[in-house]
């Protein structure tokens, strides 16, 4: 079964709850803005579907936790795509169902420890915390201060989620993240350009000569090299 059909099936199973592709980009941003005070429950978490695809590996609860966590690592803002815009959850979900399958147990244990820590510290699961508290939790993992973790350690879990978030932000969309080149648009990377000209090489400006190219847009091999 192809990755597409796996995610498509998952997507269809949740279709009734999903408003449509057009709402996906904004779904990630609005609740963050509303949670700026830090104590407001995260509205998008359980009550509202975010539209990001999953289902190749994660169950719905774990998917919501991962999606909320990676959004804190790379938050979206107007004009600045974040992890939810890039469908980082979908990237991680597919990776854990395939090339990173050996890390499934790592994730299961890490997510359980994360929520155990949140409940013992704040009385709520991660997705129910406001952004400021979620950030405090992330910081506690990063510094290794979060209790409840044995294996994986809090830092190992943070570091893995961070790495996978960056992969989901910046890997080619063929892997399920970097949706609509969200990650590449964020940093101004033009993707899989087959050629940069001498003019491109000498320019002190951002590269804008050609549109962003992904693997599925790559053309036949150019035969003439630069001089």
């Amino acid at each position, binding site marked *: 079964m192809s990755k597409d059909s796996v995610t498509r099936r998952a997507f269809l199973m949740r279709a009734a709850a999903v408003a449509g592709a057009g709402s996906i980009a904004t779904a990630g941003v609005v609740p963050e803005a509303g949670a700026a005070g830090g104590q407001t429950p995260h509205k998008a978490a359980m009550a509202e579907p975010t539209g990001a695809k999953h289902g190749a590996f994660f169950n719905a609860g774990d998917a919501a936790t991962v999606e909320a966590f990676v959004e804190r*690592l790379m938050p979206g803002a107007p004009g600045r795509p974040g992890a939810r815009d890039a469908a980082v959850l979908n990237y991680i979900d597919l990776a854990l169902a395939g090339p990173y399958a050996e890390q499934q147990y790592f994730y299961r244990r890490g997510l359980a420890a994360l929520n155990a820590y949140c409940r013992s510290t704040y009385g709520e699961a991660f997705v129910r915390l406001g952004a400021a508290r979620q950030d405090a939790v992330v910081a506690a993992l990063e510094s290794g201060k979060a209790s409840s973790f044995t294996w994986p350690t809090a830092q190992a879990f943070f570091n893995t989620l961070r790495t996978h978030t960056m992969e989901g932000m910046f890997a080619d969309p063929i892997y399920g993240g970097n949706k609509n080149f969200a990650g590449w648009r964020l*940093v101004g*990377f033009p*993707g899989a350009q087959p050629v*940069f000209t001498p003019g*491109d*090489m000498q320019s*002190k400006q951002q590269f804008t000569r050609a549109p962003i190219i992904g693997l599925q847009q790559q053309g036949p*091999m150019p035969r003439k090299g630069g001089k």
Partner: protein
Amino acid sequence: MASEKTDVVIVGVGAAGGILAAELAKGGLKVVGLERGPRLQTADFMPHDELRYFQRQDLRPNVKRQPVTWRANATARANPLPVLNYGNQAGGGTIHYGAVSWRFHEDDFRARSHTIERYSAAAIPEDSSLADWPLSYAELEPSYDRAEYDLGVSGKAGNMQGRKIDGGNVFEAPRRREYPLPPLIVDQAGQLMDAAARKLGQHPFPTPRAILSQAYKGRTGCTYCGFCQGFGCHVGAKSSILVTKLPEADATGNFDLRTGVMVYRVNSDNSGRVTGVSYYGPDGADTTIEADLVILAPFIYDNTRLLLLSATDRFQKGLANSSGEVGKHLMAHMMPRIFMTFEDRYVNTYMGPSAQKHTVDDYDADTFDHSGKGFIRGAQISVDTDNLQGGPIGTATGMNPPPGVPRWGSAYSEFLAKYFGRHAAMVAQTENLPYADQTIDLDPNVRDQWGLPAPRLTYDWRRPNELARVEFMMQRMEEIGRAMGASRVWRAPLSPGIPGAHHEGGTRMGTDPHTSVVNRYGQSWDIPNLFIIGSSTFPSMSGHNPTLTIQALSYWTADAILNRYVRTPGPLA
């Protein structure tokens, strides 16, 4: 089943094995090349896929199936390395390497004698096994010249027969003629570094690379796509063994390349000669092939591992190991690094060949006075990308943000958004000294997919001489970075003792059979029909990248075999 027989078996068809295969086959010998990985094609490299090639290391050995373990010292437990920096296909590391391709300095070949002459014996750390090479730069120069012209290297001469040329590397050893191809285009970061280094009185130059700056020998020039280090070249402009020597070897009709095969033993008889090798095929079939000559040319780990795995009653310490030196003197370049941001301009370091783009050699080898510095030997300093490749996964995972910027959250996202196109890195490739207790041996606990013991590295670079050199180089890089006009200059964290890039040693060459494994031709002192080629034979390592020297030594050995050994098989030195 009766085993088959051939003239020459070559184990590992990479930077060294590919050259030996082509040259010996052209010389009329029947050559069988045994390669652990597949034979890919240029068309396989069209997907410019940072996740696959850089992040997931698709052109490197699989760390689970082909583990290599590391421990900092002999009392620590060894764990598998998370990344393996060598090739796993026909062409070996020349498929994915950054293609930095240059000669060693004259004094690199006699680092021990040179240090004693200029300073004193006391300048060499007491526990270092620093040794001279058993051949001089002048002896190897014709082979360097041949490698550059045969394979295709782009650069600018800085020392033509003793005449120093501004714009080239004025510290390079004298060369007989100009590079076959002009330098690659200098990118924005290279131009900034050039101007800054000149202001500081240094001598910057475009790093010579085995990448075609224009069409050469029927191959097309570089397109500056930037997917270079870690990637195969999508137009074949990188002068890899795949597009240079393998077609030559094929054309002879004397070359038989077998891929997907794992050599697990070199066979020897009671006369003290090797008789061939045994290997597992892709289907697991156990095959033995006989050969008059066996040449080992895999990455350095497997030179040592194969010799140790091939022990017999006659050779109880392993083949070619009467000296007891097999596996010793492991070396690696450490890569201390700084990062820089710019405010008023883009530098777009993701464009163009990504590794070590522009260089100063003013602090390399013994080009500067080390008196009172607390260390000997130096480092090349080059401007480049975050992790020798330029994509955003590499930036996000390879560049620690500057002090005051967190690794995640809004501030980090803003930082990446602003500076991905406006940052550069600089790296010092340090010439770490050899030490006898830095070793490769067989891991007693970890086995690979074939059930063979994994190579185990025992290594910790953090010795006083090496730490002092790293700190010195960090300061030089910070000076250059500030002179480049960077708004911020900050350091990458240092590695926790783990060996860096370009591993050397394990079967060192020398003049004395009691203290070295092979002679100047890579020929075993103990077993004259066994040759061991590659950076495993380096007695010291230079601050320069090893590949061109590996390749020059391969031509040098091929000549010695064809012109001398074939006529009179026996010791060449």
